[in-house]
């Protein structure tokens, strides 16, 4: 063995020494400077558990509310909001659980809170109830019509929406959201049984739209044009699709 080292040229020994020093430095840093939690996954997990457990508890959890509040959870269980936990709307309630009389959880009463989920957004799933907050009963708090513990889907022209769901959803987000289907279309009773042979009416006169959109119309709020000069050859819906957002 000694002979082997003697045979090695001196530069190789020097390089080897540098290499060993490097390895020794790495060893020392790893052994003495890096904390053990960073080297051992089990220890790391334990220490992060400790860290998390030490944090203050904010949320009380989904089950505990039922112990005191009997009515609302029962209603919620059968409604569309059954999968939402109470604290999704009422906020973190651990403090309320600890001290029910003094600390009260909040309840969102403003329109913009419901809009987090129900404002029209094309990426939401088909069939998810969506509205345009600007046209859907503006300024009225949602809870005046909808019970948040059991929100029912809109019940008005359900008979049309049964087949024309897509139109209904588009209309719900449009400026015509509050106008019932029957205002513009008259559907004979037979349309329900023979939808392709018996067809509902469409407004076939320009004056029909003009009732709201003509310059001289007494209705306030709708955009108006001079019907005599605006696209006189055509029926309005040949250019304007009345069901979509904006209606253009």
């Amino acid at each position: 063995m000694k002979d082997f080292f003697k045979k090695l040229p001196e530069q190789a020994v020097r390089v080897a020494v540098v290499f060993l020093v490097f390895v020794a430095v790495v060893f020392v840093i790893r052994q003495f400077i890096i904390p053990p939690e960073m080297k051992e996954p089990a220890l790391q997990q334990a220490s992060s558990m400790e860290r998390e457990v030490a944090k203050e508890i904010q949320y009380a959890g989904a089950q505990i509310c039922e112990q005191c509040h009997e009515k609302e959870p029962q209603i919620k269980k059968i409604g569309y909001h059954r999968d939402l936990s109470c604290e999704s709307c009422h906020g973190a309630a651990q403090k309320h659980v600890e001290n029910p009389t003094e600390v009260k959880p909040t309840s969102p009463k403003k329109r913009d809170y419901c809009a987090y989920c129900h404002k029209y957004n094309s990426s939401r799933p088909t069939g998810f109830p969506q509205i345009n907050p600007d046209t859907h009963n503006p300024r009225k708090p949602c809870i005046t019509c909808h019970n948040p513990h059991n929100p029912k889907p809109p019940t008005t022209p359900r008979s049309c929406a049964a087949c024309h769901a897509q139109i209904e959803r588009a209309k719900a987000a449009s400026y015509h959201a509050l106008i019932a289907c029957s205002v513009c279309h008259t559907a004979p009773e037979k349309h329900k049984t023979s939808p392709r042979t018996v067809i509902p009416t469409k407004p076939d006169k320009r004056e029909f739209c003009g009732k709201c959109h003509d310059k001289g119309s007494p209705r306030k709020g709708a955009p108006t044009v001079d019907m005599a000069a605006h696209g006189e050859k055509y029926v309005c819906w040949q250019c304007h699709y009345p069901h979509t957002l904006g209606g253009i």
Partner: protein
Amino acid sequence: MEAAQNFMELSKQVVGFIYPNEIDIQWSILIVVYPYITGLVAGAFILASLVKVFNVKELQPTYRLAMLTALAFMLIAPLPLQLHLGRPERSYEMFMTPNLTSAMAMFGFVYLWYLMLVLLLEIYFEYRRDMIVWSSESTGPKKWALKLLSLFSTDISEKAVAFDKKTVKIITIIGIPSAFLLHGYVGFIFGSIKANPWWSSVMMPVVFLFSAIVSGIAMVMLLYMIIIPLRDGKIDMKCLDRVASFLFYAVIVDFSIEVLDFIHRLYESEESIKILSQLVETKLFMSLVVLQILLGMLLPLGIMVVIKVFRLQEEVRKLLYFVCGLLIQLGIFSTRWNVVIGGQLFSKSFRGLTTYKMELMGIEGFLVALALLIIPFVILSILIKLLPPWKKGELAGS
């Protein structure tokens, strides 16, 4: 506030549908610079290995320059990543607490292996004898710097020098797969992201590797043509012609592989093909079709064919080689740009495209990227001062 403004500005440039977290892209110009720099390292090393392993004698004048170029760029290679991630002082922890299942974390070890065990060792053994001689001839700090670099070695006997030569050869043989590993790894990082159809391809490491070889050879050729006249030397035309013909072959291989990848994607025609063609036709048209393919590949290939077919004069050849070298650098930089930025411009919904707006002053901005591309040349000039790649006789052309 500024971020919100930036976001609003970008959202106006979005085409089609895109998820909100895709509007602002995360990997910026710094991540473009990083594979470009590592590519130069790997390419320069491959050129150097041609001399030692494959005994291409004509390339001898570029051997040491190629090694120093590789080292200069290698020292800067991790910097763009560290600037991008932040907290560079913590980067050593990657070595202390290795994560064996993370390809990105393993880069540290690939880098360390290549820098310490290949480049530094090879340069040490290659220069050791000269460093001892030079340190005995010089004075002041340079003497001590050289002594330190030679690890205070003193043995310049024939036996010791023969040992150096043998070691250099062994290290180069180990170095070739290491250089492939280094840059293949960078391609692997992109190629293994299966959610991104622009990146996810087994061809990626190979494409990266050959574009690296192309850029490295072109860079050493450019540097050789710039530095030799600056040092009052004579360019060795035999060497230059040989470097250029290796460059020519490398460009052909690189081009064929990229075309193969392209045709394969078109023929496979997966669901992503529509958005990718839209990407190529609109957002990447300039950088991919014009800069990368036409100016960075076909034009240099054409020029090199002309040089090979017609026997042009020396001066004209030099000029054309120089233009080729510059165009290839431009092309390879665009390649990196198209991979890194291009891969983030389309939505994972395959329905929309966003835009990359480069900062000018920020830490991920244009000026930092420019500085990162200039620093290696500064390092190289210091290295060349300290460890001259050519002896006086070689410079004069003898």
